[in-house]
């Protein structure tokens, strides 16, 4: 549903871009703010379950961004796999480790500043290099046309067939590995 909404917005964007009002930008701004806020909450909340829920928000926002970028299939997969499967897995993890459902006091490392420092440092580096490198490059408007799922499928099953197969093996291995590791014996 959201995706379709966004799709409408996208269509409008293409129409309105000529007059300088860029609706997509507005959407992106909203999404970005929500995502960043949720992400920050996620890493700072004292409640593990809340953190999981904030992550849900972030992942959804990311899916929205995919849509803005015309990556529909990826957005769909994001929603299905992340929001559906991984989040459930996470919640299971939270439950199985018997986390409190309320606030916890001792979730964070004492020296938060180290993390802040490293984070800011990395951001500074990345931000600087991105601005240096891509400056004011724009994504060509033509490219906003959603890439067809067919194209994606073609790519996967022709050019990237070997990685795909490897990935499947990896998944299998991870599956077995997870079972082996987590198994009680």
């Amino acid at each position, binding site marked *: 549903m959201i995706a379709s909404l966004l799709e409408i917005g996208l269509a409008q964007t293409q129409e309105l871009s000529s007059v300088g009002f860029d609706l997509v930008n507005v959407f992106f701004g909203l999404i970005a703010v929500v995502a960043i806020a949720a992400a920050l909450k996620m890493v700072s909340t004292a409640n593990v379950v809340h953190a999981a829920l904030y992550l849900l928000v972030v992942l959804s926002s990311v899916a929205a961004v995919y849509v803005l970028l015309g990556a529909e299939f990826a957005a769909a997969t994001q929603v299905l796999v992340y929001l559906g499967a991984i989040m459930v897995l996470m919640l299971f993890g939270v439950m199985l480790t018997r986390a409190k459902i309320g606030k916890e006091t001792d979730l964070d490392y004492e020296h938060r500043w180290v993390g802040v420092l490293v984070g800011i440092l990395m951001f*500074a580096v990345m931000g600087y290099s991105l601005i240096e490198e891509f400056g004011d490059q724009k994504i060509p408007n033509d490219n906003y046309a959603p890439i067809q799922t067919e194209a994606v499928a073609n790519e996967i099953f022709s050019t990237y067939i070997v990685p795909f197969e490897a990935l499947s093996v990896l998944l299998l291995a991870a599956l077995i590995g997870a079972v082996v590791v987590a198994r009680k014996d």
Partner: protein
Amino acid sequence: MFLAAAEAASETPWIFENIWIVPAIPALSFLLIIAIGKRLPMKGSEIGLASIAAVFALSMFATYTWVDQIGFTGGHSEESAEGDTGDAEYSETESLGGGVQSVVLDTPGFAAAEGDESSEEKTESKPVPNACFADEDTGDSDDAEYGDDVDSADKDAESQSSDETDSGTEASAGIQTVSLTNPSGSSVYAASDGYETRGEAIITDTCWFKTGADSSTASGISVGTLVDGQSIMMLFVVSIISGLVHIYSTDYVNGDRRYTHYFAFLSLFTAAMLFMVLSSSTLQLIVGWELVGVCSFGLIGHWWEEKPNSDAALKAFLTNRVGDIGLLIGMIVLYFGAERTFDIAEINRQAVAGEINQLHLSVAALCLMTAIMSKSGQFVLHTWLPDAMAGPTPVSALIHAATMVVAGVYMIGRLYPVFWEGFMMPGTNLNAMAFIGGLTTVGGGLLAFVQRDIKKVLAYSTVSQLGYMVLALGMGAYTAGMFHLFTHAFFKACLFLGAGSVSHACHHSFDMKSDMGGLRKYMPKTFWTFMIGTGALMGIPPLAGFWSKDEILVGAQVWPGTSSEKPGAFVDDGEGFWLAATGGGDGTFTIPFIFGCITAALTAAYMTRVIMLTFFGEYRGGGAHDDHGHDDAHDTHAAADHDDAHDTHDAHGHDDAHGHGGLPHESGSRITIPLMILAFMASVVGFLNMPSGFVKALGLPEGWAHRFEDWVEPVGTGQFPAIDHAKPSLSLAVFATGLGLISILVVRGYYMKLFAKDPMATEYTDGLASKFPPLRALHNVLENKYYLDHLYSGVIAGGTTGPLARAAYWVNQNILDGIINTVGKTGVLLGRFIYRFFDQGVVDGAVNSSGQAAGLSGQFLRGVQSGQVRNYATLMFGATALIVAVFMFAV
């Protein structure tokens, strides 16, 4: 004689070519004694005695041969009394000498300037051939010392070398005998004094090793023997004294716990000394020089169980080692200065010919002077010599009086042209050698006054006399120096052995004040021989020392009439009819002369004291010995140390005979006979160098005059400076002898007066004068003299000599020794400091700290390695960011 010489001209005597046998015999004896000595009935001493007998015989034969070549008597009687050299004589020489080059002299005689010219003319084109490059095929490492037979084919070379400039490089064997002009030819007299050539060295060389094959820096180092008057003289001295000391030792050291070793070392010493004396190259000289040093070390430390003895040995060796720095460097400088040769004859030739530049010569001479200072006990490196008396007394006589310590003096003579040119003797009034010699001779004499140990008196006397020799050589009086070396060896050996005999009787004490006195009547033989030795040392005519000492004083050319203003006028029978002497250069050596005169007086004075304390008065040994009460009375601590050391060596068989407290008695014949022989020598050897004026005055054959000079001093060989000779002077002889006599009387008077006033004073010589009428008379004379010269004796004998000598001794013991000790201690401290702080701290520290750095960084990284995934992640991300940042901004 004349004919014999002419005959002998045709070949080099066998003994001179094979003189290497002489040192080889004792060397062999050394090995034999070490190997089987202990199992022999006489504990090895028989081997030593046999070897020294052989050496003695060969040396005497060599000496005879040499003297025969030069002539037992001079040519005066045969030549015209006018004594002027004429051209006719030279032409005669030419015909008789066969291979001798003719020399045209403008003026008769042997003028300095002309002499130089002539020698240059003769030597210009005659480098001494090198055995290593003589013949490429056979120039390998055959060594004469190792018994390779000497090829006699080298007579070829010899005759060739003697008659043509292109010398004996055609010798057909590695070993070759070289003689630039035939020594025998030289014995033909052209005139009374003007030998054309005389005393040419006979060199028998073999290649030792080569280096720098075929390159521009090629040099061949040869080893061999060099026989000339000087080495023959030393050969004579060493073999006689060594032989007598061997005999003496069989009694003196009998029963010692290391009797065998003692004889082994004596043999080794004899071998080393002869090896050094006969060496034909400076390198060989160094080898011999050090080997005698080692023997000295071994024999000073003969009773090494006691620390003072081994300390003394170490001190001797190390002090000599300091001098050896100079020796090594000096020889190296000479090696390069003389175009890469160690050959003594060649170095001398080049020095005379002016082929070595002056700087090289001066530096070499100065460096070698340090070596001489240490070996021959010159001021300031003499301090080891008195301490060296810790060794057995015969060793002191042989090594530390007669032979080894004169090695330095010998080396001066060996390389005389180097010193002559290096110190520019002909043109100066003072030089380093004369000055050091002068200082030593006076300093040593003063020091001898305050000793109470008889051996120490003699040791300082030796120092003083060595200084005399160096003084003489420094003034250019070559023959005088060598002659003094010669005479000194006999009388000083006689004195030392006499002191040993005395101590033998006095429970092995050498303390004159507490353990001796009045020995004259107990041991008359020892007394009389000792007296003769003392007289010779003091310079009492006609004993040996008189002749040599006066020659030295004449050589200073200070005394009116001794200076040779007119070069070449060697003998002017009208004026110089007294002592024949040689003198140096144009300069007059006033300061050395004064030193010499002072010493003449001093020597007489201190020896009088020794005689008085030892042989006169009453025997003081008695009971005082057992309680060692005399230790308190010692005025020098060093003496005390060494007395104890002497006392502790193993008892002799004789000890039972006289026991403690018993009266002393004369020593056995094995001790007294050598003493008598030496005393005889000390009285007569002086006549070997009588001045022609004296000879004439006595009506003796003129050919008897200045024999020693003729035998020892080379003339016209091109390897010896042309020395012009000082004229002897009767008045000087009288003056010097008078000086000696006066001091004898003054000192004696002083002591007598002291004893008379307070017989229980430091010296127990009470009643001396009352017991012996002749002495009482002498005493009266002395007493008068004492009143007459109150100031003189008060200041000199009573005042100045005491404090001055004490001060000098104090300086000696405290400052000089102190410096040496301090240097040693500082060396150790510095070494310890460097070792501890620098070696272990810094250098090793740097190494260890690099290890520690690794460890520390490991410690640091270990902290990083916390096991916390978070930390790893932090580092990973942080580092990535940093690296990216660095790459972005820096690159």
